């Protein structure tokens, strides 16, 4: 099993979610994060003093999938999250050793 972590632009969330459910994915977890990267932040003035917003708002999507699904999922996210502009984000693939579904106690792939 693999854990896919994708950092995307917030307004792409809907598209990515559709792409994933299109693949038959039934679960994912998202959170709000801030990203620092090649996409620079912006500088604003507040009462005449500058302030730099170096971190851009991003959404992090985490989902655990069967190992054989990982590539398809990564591709689907990539396509859906793509705007072509800097700051589109990253996808990371991590190994997962076990999964448990709290409700049923199922473990492993059955629990995903």
């Amino acid at each position, binding site marked *: 099993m693999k854990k896919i972590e994708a950092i995307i632009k917030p307004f792409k969330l809907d598209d990515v979610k559709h792409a994933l459910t299109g693949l038959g994915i039934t679960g994912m977890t998202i959170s709000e994060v801030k990203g620092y990267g090649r996409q620079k932040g912006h500088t604003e003035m507040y*009462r*005449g003093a500058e302030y730099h917003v170096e971190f851009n708002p991003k959404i992090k999507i985490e989902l655990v999938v069967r190992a054989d699904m990982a590539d398809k999922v990564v591709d689907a996210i990539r396509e859906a999250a793509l705007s072509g502009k800097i700051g589109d984000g990253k996808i990371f693939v991590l190994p997962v050793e076990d999964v448990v579904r709290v409700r049923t106690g199922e473990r492993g792939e059955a629990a995903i």
Partner: protein
Amino acid sequence: MKNSATSRTKRFWAGAAALAGVMLAGPAAAEEAASAGETMIQLAYSLDTFYFLMTGALVMWMGAGFAMLEAGLVRSKNTVEILTKNIALYAVACLMYLIAGYNIMYGPGLSSFIPGLSFFLGAEHTADAILKSGGSITHSKMADFFFQVVFVATATSIVSGAVAERMKLWSFLAFAAVMSLVIYPVGGYWHWGGGFLKALGFVDFAGSGVVHLCGASAALAGVLLLGARKGKYGPDGRAKAIPGSNLPLATLGTFILWLGWFGFNGGSELMISNIKEANAVSMVFVNTNTAAAGGLVAALLLAQFWFGKADLTMALNGALAGLVAITADPLSPSPVVSTLIGVIAGLIVVASIIFIDKAKIDDPVGALSVHGVTGTFGLLAAGLTNPGGSVLVQLTGIGAIFVWTFAASFVTWMALKKTVGIRVSEEDELAGVDLAECGLEAYPEFTRD
């Protein structure tokens, strides 16, 4: 005492009733006319008293304005404390002014410099005294106290914003007590209490100097002794922006202050019960409104040209600057001149905020600029617009109020600093003063702390 609409106590002034019902016979006419005169004095007294109470209530409402403005311009971790300071200072100011402040300010003085000292409020005017005065006692003494007490709270409110986010709550309240008991009343005595500034012909209609410059001078002393907020100035010495956490609150606060100012300036005419006074109060309302409008528009435009963005907080300060400036004389200038005074104040305040920020005097809400700098400007402008005004006298008044307030405040702050301390610990400041001082968070569910 409250009662149903049906069983009312008879009207006190039987004169009118008599006139209405009985008076068709000739001989008694003159006598009854005297009664008519008394009734009219009573009516005028009632109208003026009511006008005082209503405008006083509007000024009291400014306390909410300062609280919201300041709560909106600080960080959320320091919001509970600034709220506590604002509502508690109002209470403290009311009590101190009741105990002796009012008497110091308006009681008989020892000399034109040194006020007298007495405690608690004197007796209300009796009907007899009023009638005998032929109407020259125009309103209730209690209403007068009520109107005056809300002014001292305003002066003290100015301070809380400038020292926000780092001053100890109880030290601040101790200062507020001293300020409303002594510092403000003494300055007030010099002018409105009939002291030497009055004698000189100082022009300060509703308190650009007595209230706003006074508040700002006290704040300046505090800020200098207190130092800047941690992190306000980078290692390179450049000012960093510390954005306010809730701009709708700041905007609401400004609207409240704007509304309250109609009471502040409008009530300071002190009387409305004849044509001349009613016209004067109306002029004051119009000029107050238009100066605020001018200040807002000017500050917003200047921010747009200077920073490239329409900085809302500068617009809010611009409106307040216009209000503070016109307060010195909202009666003599025409609405167009008042607009101009507001416009200039709006421009000044933006520049002043930036200048003071660069001078490393850390004033989170811009109180020094809004109340001090534009208050001074307003007083000088009044020296020109008021027919009886003189720039020299205005400078004297400005100097007197500033020196007295600054010095007395400095001593008070210093005494507090040396004893209980005035600044929270670095750790508490970092974590936010709310938890350390009040044990509460303003928005426990949403703050990203």
